[in-house]
């Protein structure tokens, strides 16, 4: 790692000051687990890291919004806090369940919800889940704040739409008691690996009829991707053998999957069809 400086602003305004300009070698750092990997591999050579650890108003906490229609999750919340949160377990059990196979205990103790989003590695497990849950992310910039759907912050492989001096403040996840969600992490080598395929599905059901749903594919594509065509093939209809086949075809058609060491494109498309059908079927059968 090259030499650089670390600053620890106490206020958001101070942080904006440190982030000002357009030098890509100046970046915020939260837990730092992902940034450290990039720095060690010399793909990121920082000039300045702006630590968010000392912010007075810490981007922390997991709490229901005023009307109870959503849960606010501070961007500096660590995965371990998420894992242990009763609020999360109650409202989004899919998140709690995903934690067991997400990275490892040490990373979960340090990595944060906001940093995870800003990293934009398509293999990450949480972003597709947040997207399936319909979450929004609250972004603070020098010009003010804005809330955008999580899917809109991903621009490509390790690329986001975030401005250079934007800070992720919190995640807002709608509480939708009628919806059921699942996340499937498909690993093709060791059980403890990056997924070859991540598949998050959230669905509102009446009997076996999907009144509404969101399907998100990750890992196999350059960014977490909503499989709109597959959703359309299922929305409003029964989850049955033929709709599942149509959804699988639509998903495989839409997803831009490439070959890598975790599987050929063809194989990953096949896995997508199989696991999409299994995920939907199990949600419909719950």
């Amino acid at each position, binding site marked *: 790692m090259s030499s650089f400086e670390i600053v620890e602003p106490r206020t958001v305004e101070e942080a904006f000051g440190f982030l000002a300009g357009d030098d890509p070698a100046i970046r915020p750092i939260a837990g730092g687990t992902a940034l450290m990997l990039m720095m060690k591999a010399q793909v990121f050579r920082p000039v300045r890291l702006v630590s968010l650890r000392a912010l007075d108003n810490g981007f922390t906490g997991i709490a229901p919004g005023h009307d109870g229609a959503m849960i606010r999750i501070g961007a500096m919340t660590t995965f371990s806090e998420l894992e242990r949160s009763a609020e999360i377990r109650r409202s989004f059990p899919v998140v709690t369940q995903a934690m067991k196979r997400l990275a490892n205990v040490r990373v979960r103790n340090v990595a944060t919800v906001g940093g995870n989003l800003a990293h934009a590695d398509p293999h990450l497990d949480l972003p597709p889940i947040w997207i399936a849950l319909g979450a929004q992310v609250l972004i603070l910039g020098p010009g003010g704040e804005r809330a955008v759907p999580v899917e809109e912050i991903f621009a490509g492989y390790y690329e986001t739409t975030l401005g250079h001096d934007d800070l992720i403040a919190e995640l807002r996840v709608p509480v939708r008691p009628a919806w059921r969600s699942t996340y499937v992490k498909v690993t093709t*080598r060791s059980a403890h690996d990056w997924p070859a395929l991540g598949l998050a599905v959230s669905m509102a059901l009446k009997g076996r009829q999907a009144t509404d749903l969101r399907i998100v594919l990750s890992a196999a594509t350059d960014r977490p991707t909503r499989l709109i065509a597959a959703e359309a093939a299922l929305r409003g209809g029964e989850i049955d053998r033929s709709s599942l086949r149509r959804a699988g075809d639509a998903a495989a058609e839409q997803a831009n999957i490439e070959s890598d060491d975790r599987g050929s494109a063809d*194989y990953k498309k096949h896995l997508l069809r*199989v696991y999409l059908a299994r995920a939907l079927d199990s949600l419909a059968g719950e």
Partner: protein
Amino acid sequence: MAAVTPSRQIGRSIPRLEARGKVTGRTEYVHHLRLPGMLHGKIFRSTIPHGRIKRIDVSAARALEGVHSVVTIEDIRTVIPHPYYGPAFHDQPILADGKVRFAGEPVAVVLAADRRVAEEAVGLITAEYEELPAVHDEVEAATSPVVVHDELKPAATFPDLQHLKGRRGTNVALDYQLLRGDPDAAFASAAHVFEHTFRTQQVMHTPLEPFVAVADVDGGRLTLHTASQNPSFVRIEISRLLGWPENRVRVKVPFLGGGFGGKLYIKLEALVTALSLLARRPVKISLTMDEQFFMVTRHPCTFRIKSAVSAEGRITARECEIWWNGGAYADIGPRVTQKAGFTAAGPYDIENVSIRSYAVYTNRPPAGALRGFGAPQTAWAYECHTDMIAAALGIDQVEFRRRNLLHNGRPQASGTVLRDAALGLVLDHLAARMNWSRPLDRGSGRIRRGRGLAIGFKGITAPTTSVAVVNLYADGSCALYVGTVDMGQGSDTVMAQIAGEVLNIDAEAIRVIHSDTDVTPYDMGTLGSRSTFHMGTAVRLAAEDAKRKIAELARELGLPPGTNVPLDELFRRKYGMQAGNIIGTGSFIPAYEKPDPATGQSANVTPFWGVAGTGAEVEVDTETGEFKVTRLVNVADVGTALNPKLVQAQLSGGAIMQFGFTTSENMTFRDGQLTTNSLADYKIPTLLDIPRDFINEIVESRQESGPFGGKGAGESTTIALSPAVGNAVADAVGVRLTDLPVDAEAVFRALTAAGIAQAQS
């Protein structure tokens, strides 16, 4: 006076002598070593698999603040005029010399007091190459016009390589052959002939303590602190490179953070030596995990195997042709080619055998020794082949093996008569543990179950020497000087048990002095399951020598034979005070007969046989090819288990490592570039991966020529595991994989090709 107990030391499962240091984090590894004034070296590596170096620009690196120097082969030549090394061929330059032969080869080194500065400076070096066509596949390379080395340069230490000296225009670095009986005639008259080709992938040891060495040249003496499995070889080879007598080179080895065959011969030692000579300061190089993959690997191999089988299901002839992908430098590959070559026809009693085994250079990272020394690759072929024959003939797999098994007293393909190899017992025990005679629940719907087994054996590198010294101090306490390196296998503990058994001292009370070639005597190396047998025998002899000297001392003092006057009292009577030593020495080299170069025949080709079998039960998802090994049974013949608990650990450790090599580990290349050189991409087994039902057992056996009936155990369970898994998958879903690794996609493709993969729901 050390505690004297009536209990025997052999067969005790005592915890490792160094246990406390390991659980408190205090154990010494070279990894931690820092010397005053020490410089760190970081390596600049080739980015192309094959090419001539046109220019290396180190000016920017040299100019970086904090950089001590930047070194290329031209600098190395000023201190080592002939900078080529290797155990079989002197083919490997200390840094790339005019040419690069694999992507990742060391080209230059930056030295700096601060490792980070050296790392940054490496990023400032540039090199220009004239790219040459590269060859990556072993079969292609055997006849390719693309030649990795212009001329073959065998080292003098291998008499069987001398005919290759000066050979040009070839990548074949050893052409081993064995011929027994008349295979052609047997094939011509056979009831059935079967021929298949199998392949294995490139894998790596990935010891968690990556390769590391420190050289310190001072006052005309060199001290090397290195994580090496064979300090004696390092001393000899470095002395040769420097033109120094052996006594000016000192090699010290503390504990190793894993070795598995990787840390053998010369790895970083020649490089750090040259750097320390140039810098006149201590120099350390520690590789990162990512860099380890460019150091040494296991040979990928292609194995064409053909068998003649009689109407009664007896194998009458076998023809084996094996190509070993040695990568850019031979390392110990020619020995792998030969040693795994002579057992390549499998542990069967076959009258007519022909084996041709080729060590082949390619433009890949070098391959060398890795736990099993080629036996796992050959067993993958011969044991899958065995099941395929049994299936084709409609004979039960265990029955077919029993019908053809090699028994003690019968000659193996090399002509050496099998002794103390419990193949039959292992097979029977394995079949019993697998409940082979009972039907298996084969599953239904998309989940199908199956089971498979395999057995295998290996010969041991020969002839090799071990020397041991037992030192009894004036108070009667004991130290043992051995060059065997404890890299986790527990050799310190077992050697102490052997000495303690002879001297009637608790093993825990014996101090084992670690490798320091100024102090510890010669040992060929900690490799190939040889230590318990070879060094164990040397230790037994040294302890017996010491015991004889104690008796002589007692006689000299006028005591009757068998006196129970304790040793400290003997010393006091002799010297009038607490003084003196008794030094017992032992040296061991087993009998050996060099094989005939044309036929590979020898009356005594190996000091003992490693024998093991593995059984696996699997569950396959026919929709995706995903599978789980639900049960894994390993059975081995280790002779007498000198420390049963340590033997268990060796058996399960070897099996899990091979399980990784079977199912998840794979060095993959794109355009000659390795794409999986990190533990994020090269997946070794975790606790989640190992089969839930996993047993390792030994059979009742004794190696008559071994110390207290013992022999090596560290490699046994690597041999038969892969084919057991392959056979189980074939049993479950009826498709046969011929290439390792067996992974979900490979199974899925085979299922699809066979029309078995299920249509979409």
